[in-house]
């Protein structure tokens, strides 16, 4: 594969779809990079395909035959002579096998190495690495629970109840069981193992203390290939439903900024220690003034814009520069956060039942005004296909403080118009006026409790 020269720009294959493909396309154009948009047969009319330099249909509508098919994506990279692959989020973005194949083909993935993905993809080895780096973890097992249930019982009794049994190779709530008393342990382990084996091909489970009312706090990091790593502030992503985030904000309010700074430093140091490269996120539960590591996402996050709005740093641009081998152009001392940013995920879903609502967008009117950003691939007449994730837009606002940001978000949501399909917009509008949200600092159980209370 030819090395791009000064006169020959890097060729970036965007291995994703929807709003994030458009976001990456914009960063490529900003840097003057040659962009290649791949798509499934159902996605030929995606918005970013009008902006990229080349397009290629790689397979049928089903993600398993297109965006999730590593061999097809790699073949597309060969055919288009791409030297960098940006995986976005979801699909192949945390697939170590894909990362390894990209490395073996002589190309660069905009992300960490396959070895790091494997290390952090296994929750047990990730926790061990965090402990070595001084990142706080929940009390729990050092290794996978033994297959002998009596031995597992002894270990779990020592951790104490309530505890949570989790899949080593998992995420997104699958292969996870909360155990309130010792009597419930054996069933929980067996069920979690069975579910983990089916979902992730790895039946290993581990146990750790279960926090009752934690917040979800995360730290964004960026690390280059020269060994420099920085943290870009904290995000609060506690408004979730079934472990899927719905509203995110930065900074995390009501937490001592010094405690966050110390945590951020530890995360950046952990990146340097393990040789991490690219953008990443350390996720924590926060309860009783203590942070506990949950997992690291070795990719760009959906919610990265709130960090971009508060720091002024274009994270996707930085990812591409790192992939091109350039060192970070700023140090930790240069990073300042300003104001408050909130993101609402606009999903093509019924706002009460959360049932997916694919279909034709009859009209789309974007909100605007100072501090309003919309990341979306929508346009009038766009058909939301039923084959993929239901995220269709991210509405992001930036205000001088949290109250200002909440007010701007409410105004922007009121102004935004999407007709033809159901979306989560009415729920967001309601949330922006809910006392719990206005006060801030709600736990990860807040939204589900609110929905139960209102009978949804």
């Amino acid at each position, binding site marked *: 594969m030819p090395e791009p020269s000064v006169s020959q720009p890097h060729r970036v294959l965007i291995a994703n779809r929807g709003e994030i493909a458009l976001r990456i396309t914009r960063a490529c154009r900003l840097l003057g990079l040659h962009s290649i948009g791949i798509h499934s047969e159902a996605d030929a009319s995606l918005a970013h395909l009008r902006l990229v330099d080349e397009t290629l249909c790689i397979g*049928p509508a089903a993600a398993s035959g297109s965006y999730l098919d590593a061999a097809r994506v790699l073949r597309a990279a060969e*055919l288009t002579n791409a030297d960098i692959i940006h995986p976005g989020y979801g699909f192949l973005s945390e697939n170590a096998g894909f990362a390894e194949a990209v490395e073996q083909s002589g190309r660069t993935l905009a992300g960490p190495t396959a070895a790091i993905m494997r290390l952090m993809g296994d929750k047990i080895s990730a926790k061990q690495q965090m402990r070595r780096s001084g990142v706080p973890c929940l009390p729990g097992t050092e290794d996978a629970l033994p297959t002998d249930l009596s031995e597992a019982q002894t270990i779990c009794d020592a951790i104490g109840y309530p505890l949570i049994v989790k899949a080593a190779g998992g995420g997104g709530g699958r292969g996870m069981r909360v155990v309130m008393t010792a009597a419930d342990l054996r069933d929980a382990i067996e069920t979690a193992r069975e579910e983990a084996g089916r979902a992730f091909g790895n039946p290993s489970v581990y146990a750790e203390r279960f926090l009752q009312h934690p917040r979800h706090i995360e730290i964004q990091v960026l690390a280059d290939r020269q060994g420099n790593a920085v943290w870009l502030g904290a995000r609060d992503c506690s408004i979730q439903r079934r472990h899927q985030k719905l509203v995110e904000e930065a900074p995390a309010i009501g937490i001592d900024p010094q405690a966050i700074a110390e945590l951020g430093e530890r995360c950046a140091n952990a990146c340097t220690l393990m040789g991490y490269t690219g953008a990443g996120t350390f996720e924590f539960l926060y309860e009783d003034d203590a942070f506990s590591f949950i997992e690291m996402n070795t990719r760009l996050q959906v919610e990265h814009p709130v960090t971009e709005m508060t720091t002024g740093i274009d994270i996707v641009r930085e990812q591409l520069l790192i992939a091109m081998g350039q060192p970070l152009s700023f140090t930790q001392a240069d990073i300042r956060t300003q104001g408050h940013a909130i993101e609402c995920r606009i999903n093509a879903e019924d706002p009460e039942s959360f049932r997916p609502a694919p279909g*034709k967008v009859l009209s789309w009117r974007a909100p605007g005004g100072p501090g309003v950003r919309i990341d979306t691939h929508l346009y009038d007449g766009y058909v939301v296909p039923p084959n993929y994730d239901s995220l269709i837009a991210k509405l992001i606002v930036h205000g001088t403080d949290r109250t200002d940001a909440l007010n701007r978000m409410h105004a922007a949501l009121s102004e935004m118009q999407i007709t033809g399909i159901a979306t989560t917009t009415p729920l967001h509008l309601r949330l922006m006026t809910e006392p719990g949200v206005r006060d801030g600092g709600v736990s990860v159980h807040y939204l589900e409790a609110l929905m139960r209370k209102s009978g949804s």
Partner: protein
Amino acid sequence: MTFLEDLLNDLPELVGRMRHHDVRHVSLKNGTGALALTLSENPGQTPPAHPIAPPAKAENTPVPSPEMGVFRSNDLDEKHPVRSGEIVGFVEAGALRLPVTATADGTLGPALIGDGCVVGYHDVLFRIHPDG
């Protein structure tokens, strides 16, 4: 506003509710007008405007690429007569050389992609004009 105008304004919400409750057909009427709504099986697909299709017009039949790969021409003459299933070119997909086959009887139009060019999955490579 007339009954019909009111309904048309409320159409997006009505369609959303029909989908939510899995209702495929609704007939509404009052003294001044009537409206019948039929939703397609797949959201996003527009139901046919006419219940009975107009007589089929002879149209060109597309010949799609069987795979993403590199197109290799068979150097066929323009206006080459073909039979359905006849090999009219190849697509190299990795180690595979996959035949491109005519999808109908008729006259093959010129290749829409140059020899050696990259083609996508199911990209149209030729069009076949019906004879007669």
